[in-house]
């Protein structure tokens, strides 16, 4: 058991390292590109030269990657701040600390500060989305699966299948059309300004609803098919033939076994919600890190993109790892094998 966990942990670290190297290699593909992103399009050749020397942009890619990692964990100072570069960038924490992502060129501030402003908002959004998706899809999926072929099952199945065909941005547009534009019950944008005429709570409803609708449809389908598969297993038939109460069969025999696949899927769904968060934050002007990633991409804020994509990558790899681990822990058959 411990060997399996260690093995998966090793794979996890390996994937994260390789993926972060790829991320670094693509964004800092050409040193000239990095310098011109920092200095802007009108920089003089001599300015580019001196910045490249200072930041060591002409070093081999791998050296630069190690320096970037070193900066991130606080072993290597960030050379971009301070008066010497003349960019007016400074960091009150100094040039060397754990979690140093460098400076956001778009905002002229240390990235940690930029993230601190936005991170909490995205966490709120995601926690609500997942917190609602899980119970809704478990209840609907189990109901549909237990009553396979019934009218209820058909309604749930047809609805979820149709909803998975809708892109998040279409769901968002439809919800805005109905609840904001037509009925006027809810705000169509969610900038979370405290002075807004809509309360912060009401601004959260539509963004959360989009994420919940898009992801619970998928998770419900997984739960349903898992329940249906489990019901067809011989041990369920045995339990029934033994004369156990239907409720007892459902709770103890079916649900316990039917939950293995959905747990993994729910963890992977967090990974998928990452993309949804960018879309939802963009359409509702929600001040989270998803919209920040989009703004950074459109601006060409290279260090901010590195920071945000690294965070997204870490979340994705971690959830995959946890999903894998949950599968091993929940299903003894895999543990033994």
């Amino acid at each position, binding site marked *: 058991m411990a060997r399996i966990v260690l093995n998966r942990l090793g794979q996890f670290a390996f994937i994260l390292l390789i993926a972060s190297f790829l991320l670094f290699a693509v964004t800092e593909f050409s040193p000239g590109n990095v310098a011109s992103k920092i200095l802007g399009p009108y920089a003089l050749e001599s300015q580019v030269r001196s910045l490249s020397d200072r930041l060591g942009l002409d070093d081999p890619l791998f050296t630069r990657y190690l320096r970037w990692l070193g900066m991130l964990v606080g072993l290597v100072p960030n050379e971009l701040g301070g008066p010497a570069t003349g960019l007016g960038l400074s960091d009150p924490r100094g040039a060397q600390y754990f979690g140093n992502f460098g400076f956001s060129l778009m905002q002229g501030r240390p990235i940690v500060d930029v993230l601190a402003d936005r991170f909490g908002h995205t966490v709120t959004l995601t926690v609500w989305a997942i917190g609602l998706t899980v119970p809704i899809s478990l209840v609907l999926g189990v109901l549909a699966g237990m009553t396979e072929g019934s009218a209820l099952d058909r309604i749930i199945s047809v609805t979820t299948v149709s909803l998975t065909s809708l892109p998040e941005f279409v769901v968002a547009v439809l919800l805005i059309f109905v609840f904001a534009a037509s009925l006027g019950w809810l705000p169509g944008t969610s900038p979370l300004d405290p002075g807004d005429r809509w309360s912060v709570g009401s601004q959260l409803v539509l963004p959360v609803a989009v994420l919940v609708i898009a992801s619970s449809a998928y998770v419900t389908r997984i739960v349903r098919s898992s329940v249906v598969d489990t019901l067809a297993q011989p041990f369920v038939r045995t339990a029934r033939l033994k004369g156990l109460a239907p409720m007892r069969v459902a709770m103890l025999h079916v649900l316990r076994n039917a939950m293995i696949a959905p747990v993994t899927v729910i963890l992977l769904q967090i990974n998928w919600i990452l993309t949804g968060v*960018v879309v939802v934050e963009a359409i509702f002007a929600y001040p989270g890190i998803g919209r920040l990633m989009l703004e950074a991409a459109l601006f060409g804020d290279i260090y901010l993109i590195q920071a945000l994509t690294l965070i997204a990558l870490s979340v*994705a790899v971690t959830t995959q790892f946890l999903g894998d681990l949950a599968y091993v822990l929940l299903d003894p058959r895999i543990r033994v094998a």
Partner: protein
Amino acid sequence: MTAGADRTTTPARAGFLVRLRGSRLLRSRSATVGLAILVFWLVVAIGAPWIAPYDPTAIDFAASADPSPSAAHWLGTDAIGRDLLSRIIFGARTTFLVIPLSVFSAFLVGAIAGLAGGWYGGWTDTILARAGDVMLAFPALVLYIILITTFGPSLWNIVIAVTLTYAPGVARLMRGQVLAVKGLEYVLAARAAGESPIYIMAAEILPNVGTPLIVDLCLRTGYAVILVGTLGFLGLGLPPPTPDWGGMVVEGVNLMTIYPHIALLPAAAVTSVVVACNLLADGFRETAR
């Protein structure tokens, strides 16, 4: 046309139609509907310059005062007076260029990797599987954002992003299928006959692992339509004058209270293609049973 010529052409055509109608796929209602929607859009995309009533980038200032549907503009215009029907028709071209290209590329790379991994096993398989694991760590949107930071938004970057994010899944599926048929008699017979591995993979294995791969192809095409629509919606897709369904939706969102059709119609177009792909996947699944 003479009567004789008529008689020789009619049976052949009827025969073709009968065969088509009788084919197992078209017996499934969902497959027929899905296929019909896709064919409809494909015809629209190919015939765009002849079907569209206006130039998709031409601005009608008179109409921009009231973008609602009218006799001159059947579906109305967008906020700056460009004919919405023509833009949707030309938008089909963008979709039907980007999607097949990127999905085809993803399947080519994935199928080759899966065939090679499953057939050769050992180190080849391990390295390919690890590479796939690394690529699966990147959500498609994140990968695309990394790519455009250095290379700027373009058709090829969309193709690369879709290829890299979808190929590992295709490869896993393919690998499993190859392992399932690898030891069967007809493959062994081909090996014994001294056929080259490439020949065996292409002529013996590939045709026999078809159905799950085709179902996966349909589903992934649907996802790709969602992804490309999303990129356009986020302003990361192809540059603005190109009519792009996702981009058209975002242009209309601000006018939602007064002229909802500007956002809703292109949104419906994107959705119809996704639905068609999913229906087709269902159809293939039914026929496989």
